[in-house]
């Protein structure tokens, strides 16, 4: 990988910090250079976070058995959750706890 090929695809790093990459300069010598990220890596990481979100949602649903899925509509279950635990978020995952 040459210096000019070092990717700068923003994604994971949101501030102006950089991670160090090894790349070769014009003389073919290795130098350390900064990278803001790389698309394949960003994709893979996003995928890993989606997996984590899914498993949180799955765990939440396993923890709340006879609740959502069998209820005819969504709103009674939200109401039920809100009434009994007013401070509890609808779901710790990114998706709704009631499906």
């Amino acid at each position, binding site marked *: *990988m040459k210096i000019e090929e070092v990717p700068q695809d923003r994604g994971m*790093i949101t501030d102006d910090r950089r*991670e160090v990459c*090894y790349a070769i300069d014009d003389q073919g010598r*290795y130098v350390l250079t900064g990278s803001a990220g790389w698309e*394949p*890596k960003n994709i*893979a*990481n996003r995928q*890993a976070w989606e997996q984590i979100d899914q498993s949180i949602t799955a765990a939440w649903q396993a923890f709340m058995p006879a609740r959502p899925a069998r209820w005819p509509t969504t709103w009674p279950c939200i109401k039920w959750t809100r009434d009994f635990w007013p401070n509890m978020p609808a779901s710790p995952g990114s998706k709704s706890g009631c499906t």
Partner: protein
Amino acid sequence: MTDNVSATLHIDFDHRQAAHCESGVCANLLRHYGLDISEAMAFGIGSGLFFAYLPFIRVNGLPLTTYRCEVGGIVKRVTRRLGCRVRWQKFRDPHKAMDALDEMLAQGVPVACRTGGYWLPYFPPAFRFHFNMHNLVVCGKSADQYTISDPVFPDLEHCSRKDLGKARFAKGALAPKGAMYYVESAPGTVDLAIPARQGIREVCRRMLSTPVPLIGIRGIRYLARQVRQWPRKLGEERAILYVGQLIRMQEELGTGGAGFRFMFAAFLQEAAELLALPRLMDLSHTMTAVGDHWRKFAVIGGRICKGRASADDNYDAMADLLQVCADGEAAVYRELLQRIKG
């Protein structure tokens, strides 16, 4: 700083950013003791380069692939080969662990700790995975805040006692258990030639002649055969997860690019001068070319994960690239073994 001397500890520690935490910590620590070696040199002398595909070990429910040696192996080998004495400690009680850390800091000794990345507040949110193999150096303290030289970050960072304690006692796979280590004694000057030869020899032998088919060059070829079968065996959805995990292990977690292959190539360049073996320079270029193939592999994988694969981006193409990588690396290691004999 002057009004509260007892609570403020500052060790003059030369922090340099590195690609990988363990080799970075190792190089930074040794530099503190007057042994000026680069991260790549530490990585090479410590025989950090490796490959293993271990489908029976699961990380997030997906098979483990590793491009580097075992945790702590780099530090252990580098310090042994350079003749440094390093003290390792593990703890059960977080309070005792933090007190021991304070005690060493009070003596002016920078202390390296193994931590779980999830608990470190200065990590960008997207990086806060539960990952228990992160190394850093604690090099100061003021009141409740520790000064941290974390090699993958450009500047010194800060972390509260509570957070650092949690990070040192992160739970889960490969829990660090408060592990910390520090240099007890180091030789003033050291000849790097013999350690570099030892480092190269160990990497080559491990990659070429491990009897287990999941490790080294054989491991890469085994993975290639597996990758070809994934879409049929696992179904498209799960195969994509497997590919994503592969890319993360290769490019994430501070590998310096291409699963440490570029870092090793940088080491070979330094070794070429050190050992007066100009041929190692050419081998370094070959290794860079191999690394570029690994990167191509990740590019195709990324497209497959994103559902943007063109006709040429498929599992067979990835498997073919892996075979190219295996061929290229095997040739480099074989010649390296010959060259460093003399």
